[in-house]
């Protein structure tokens, strides 16, 4: 129950044009976040940044602006060469938020 209470739904949940691609976006999100975590673990920060940048640009379009903002923080963090612990903490926040995302 707690998980559903915390669920984040798309702003376009009621838009019939959008439902198909929003569902696809949500179903692919775990893989996307997984790839980001893997890049971070492997120290491939540029790869992480590219993935974060893409998510930053797209998430809002699918009705998840806060997910986009979380991705933007990672994109910016790598660009600014922030401490790796800062990046890890931001990635942790994004992963936790992504887990609550529902179509």
């Amino acid at each position, binding site marked *: 129950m707690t998980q559903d209470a915390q669920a984040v739904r798309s702003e376009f949940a009621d838009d019939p*044009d959008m439902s198909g691609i929003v569902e696809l*976006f949500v179903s692919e999100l775990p893989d996307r976040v997984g790839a980001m975590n893997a890049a971070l673990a492997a120290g491939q920060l540029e790869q992480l940044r590219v993935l974060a940048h893409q998510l930053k*640009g797209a*998430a809002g*379009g*699918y009705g998840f602006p806060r997910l986009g903002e979380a991705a933007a923080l990672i994109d910016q963090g790598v660009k600014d060469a922030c401490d790796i612990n800062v990046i890890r903490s931001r990635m942790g926040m994004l992963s936790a938020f992504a887990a609550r995302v529902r179509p």
Partner: protein
Amino acid sequence: MSAAKIPLPKVLAIDDSELIHRLLRVRLQHEQIELHGTTDAVEGLAMARRLMPDVILLDIEMRSMDGFAVLQALKDDIDLQDIPVIFISATASMEDRVRALDMGAVDFVAKPFEVVELKARVRSALRVQHLVKMLAQKAQVDGLTGLWNRTYFDRRLSQEVAQAVRHRRGLSLVMCDVDGFKRLNDECGHPFGDLVLERLSKILLSGRTSDVPCRYGGEEFGIILPNTHGSEAMEVADRYRRAIELEQWPGPTGRTITASFGVADIHALDGLQSIEELVGAADAALYRAKLNGRNRVESAHADRPAR
């Protein structure tokens, strides 16, 4: 030259994220456009050449080539430089926006984009592009006859010569001049002279679809014949000559109006240096057709000294 059915304007999206393409396909599905897309910048340039889109939506951050480099390549290509480019980017720094606009982008939309705004900006760019195309077309078409004008003739002939030389293809030029046009104008009035030019243009347009008839100036026409060697060009010109001779005219019965023709084949001209030389050779043949009695076709190469 006139389109029976107006095709939908083409929009090409170049963005390295498939997420954005899916979004654009859904969000622009009700617009009166034909949407194309690619996630690869290099492929995007190739598609631009192939499709000649009316608007390009361009991402900045891409792996193979960034958006600024793509924009520069578009602006450096004479065929593509007039296609309006709208940047769509999640990198929305003021410096990037200014740089994009200074390089010739028409607009800039930040990602994530507002759908209504994106649609409005695409429509706005399409409107401007439509006007630009119309103006470009008008500037190349002769007002009286509807044929291509001299400006177009010069440009097209240069292109065709370059192509024919590079690919070793045939190319001939036919110059055509109405016989006794000045006297016709004096005796029958200028409106009749205009009618003659219009009818002749229709005849020249009714030939092979690959022929490119242009109004060279006054009562002189230039017809570019791609993939055509001299002997075939002579036959084509003679068909035009006969069609003109057989045309029925208002006024006194039995009136005939004729035209003379000069034909030049680029591969029969040794070491062609300029299109002026080609036009000059066809013109000289036309002049000989006039001297030899008018209403005839002469070749530029008939009198080549056999050395």
